[in-house]
């Protein structure tokens, strides 16, 4: 990953709409051939940032570089990027072929060359034989594919995807996620995806920038983001995170000793506190699947504590237990994969819970 050259570089990018500060000093680099996601709630500036790459938004200060070139003053129709729009923006008065070949119009290709390239592009997105259809007669998933083919046929350096899957139903969305990943590997083009769906970002991306209120809160690969979020906000936004009041007792030689409400005194690695001090109080966070409800005869691999089950939510393949650890006022969530032949526990059951200090994250 590290040897890959830089494709996009943001240098202290600011964007104002009147008084509204939409982008607040974005600094980031996106590497060539990377599947990069901008993830955040609506209004966080992720789409604005994407549009500054495309050239649809002018930045107020800072610089955007694509493949080492400053993009200031370069209009959208001359940038080496193409975009898949949220609404797909399929031209309704043209056929599928005409839509896909639209960007090649200016190259004045011979008819057979054009037809061949359009055919290849359609085949790549699995729409072989749909060329002559009217664009308006397509389903959501097919429109999406046409939009992809139309953008990729120009062989851009960067493909920008603005919430491309949000209009599809769940099944179609999951199918398209896999197809997009395959397609990206196949063409090797840098993909930049904007999404508010954390699951989608985790599934598809090489790296993710989590954005809140015009700033990048954390930029990391999906695993780091999930296991070591650098703030409670990021932790909350990506998946489910349990929080437990805690206080730091001592800190030395890369080890931190923490006094927690539910787990007592724990020693953790300094890497488990990736965030800066925010002054909003100290707490320990852990994911629901890092705890295990222990059944009779099972032994904890690491540590265990006692708890009372307060709520049970059965999901078929999973069961969510909300349990109150002894010594804590609020319950924490544990997610357990259901195993055949093992009962689902009832509310009120006293049980042992296994946990591990290595799975904790410290927020200060």
């Amino acid at each position: 990953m590290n040897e890959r050259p830089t494709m996009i570089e943001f240098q202290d990018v600011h964007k104002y709409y009147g008084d509204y500060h939409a982008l607040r000093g974005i600094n980031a680099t996106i590497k060539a051939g990377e599947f990069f996601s901008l993830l955040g709630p609506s209004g966080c500036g992720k789409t604005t940032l994407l549009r500054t790459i495309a050239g649809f938004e002018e930045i107020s200060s800072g610089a955007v570089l694509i493949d080492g070139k400053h993009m200031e003053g370069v209009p959208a129709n001359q940038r080496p990027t193409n975009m898949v729009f949220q609404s797909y923006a399929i031209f309704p008065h043209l056929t599928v072929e005409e839509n896909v070949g639209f960007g090649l119009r200016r190259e004045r290709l011979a008819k057979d060359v054009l037809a061949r390239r359009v055919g290849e592009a359609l085949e790549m997105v699995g729409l072989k034989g749909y060329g002559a259809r009217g664009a308006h007669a397509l389903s959501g998933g097919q429109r999406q594919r046409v939009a992809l083919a139309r953008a990729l046929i120009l062989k851009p350096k960067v493909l920008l995807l603005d919430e491309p899957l949000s209009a599809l139903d769940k099944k179609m969305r999951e199918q398209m996620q896999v197809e997009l990943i395959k397609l990206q590997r196949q063409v090797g083009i840098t993909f930049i995806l904007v999404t508010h769906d954390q699951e989608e970002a985790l599934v598809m991306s090489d790296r993710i920038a989590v954005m809140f209120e015009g700033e990048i809160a954390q930029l990391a690969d999906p695993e780091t983001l999930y296991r070591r979020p650098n703030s409670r906000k990021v932790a909350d936004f990506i998946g489910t995170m349990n929080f437990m009041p805690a206080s730091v007792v001592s800190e030395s030689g890369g080890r931190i000793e923490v006094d927690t409400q539910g787990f007592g005194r724990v020693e953790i690695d300094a890497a488990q506190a990736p965030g800066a001090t925010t002054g909003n109080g100290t707490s320990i966070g852990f994911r629901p699947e890092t705890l295990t409800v222990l059944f009779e005869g099972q032994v904890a691999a690491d540590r265990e504590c006692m708890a009372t089950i307060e709520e049970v939510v059965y999901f078929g393949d999973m069961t969510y237990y909300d349990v109150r650890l002894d010594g804590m006022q609020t319950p924490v969530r544990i997610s357990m994969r259901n195993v055949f032949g093992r009962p689902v526990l009832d509310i009120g059951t006293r049980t042992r819970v296994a946990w591990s200090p290595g799975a904790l994250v410290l927020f200060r």
Partner: protein
Amino acid sequence: MKIPVLRIYTIGYLIFLYAPILLLPLFAFNDSKVIAFPLSGFTTQWFAQMWADEQMFNSFKNSLIVAGSASVLATTFGVFAARASTRYNFPGKAGILGLIMLPLVLPEMIVAMSLLVVLLAVGVPLSIFTIILGHVLICTPFAVAILTSAFQSLDRSLEEAAYDLGETAWSTFRLIILPLVMPGIISSLLIAFTISLDEFIIAFFLGGNETTLSVYIFGQFRFPAKVPAIMALGTVLVCLSICLLTIAEYFRRRGIAKTGAKDTGGFL
């Protein structure tokens, strides 16, 4: 027995609306100079008389020139205004649009009188050109209203997509925006054409020695002997209107079928 009030009302309303138009062909083919029942026999002499009237052809030609120019000009201005109002924000936008739409509610008499005063003061000779000026003024608000709704229903990202795919602002307009608002443009042309063709006051005030069809017809009513020929002319006009509407509706439906949009009613 219950009286179907609403049904009677509806039928009565439709009779009131269309029966007079049905009288036109009836008397156009009636062999009598008097417009009254009972009918006295079939003839086509009124059509022949109308056909031989050079003044009628002249004013018909004037009307076509005026309505054609006014509808094209008003629609062109309408495209500019609709594009500006749906796409850009600029200071005083609401006020400017309000002023553009104002002639819609302004009595035509006032428009006609004030234009006449100004034109005479400036020394512009009255001709069909001055009628066109006046008609553009009253047709433009209709064009703006129709075209604004056409431009509004246009997804902004279609434009951006074309731009993103390498087209310039102008080629994007030509290749994407124009074809997609074409039904609106056709509606606007038709309505402006109809309004201009019908219009009397401005044509009468600003025409000078030139007469349009509406002014000519009004003038002919002073001579009872000419009235049957006017009936014949009216019959021809009704037939032309029906043809025009049919063509317009055909294109509207074809446009809808082509873009797959939902049919939301007549072209008006």
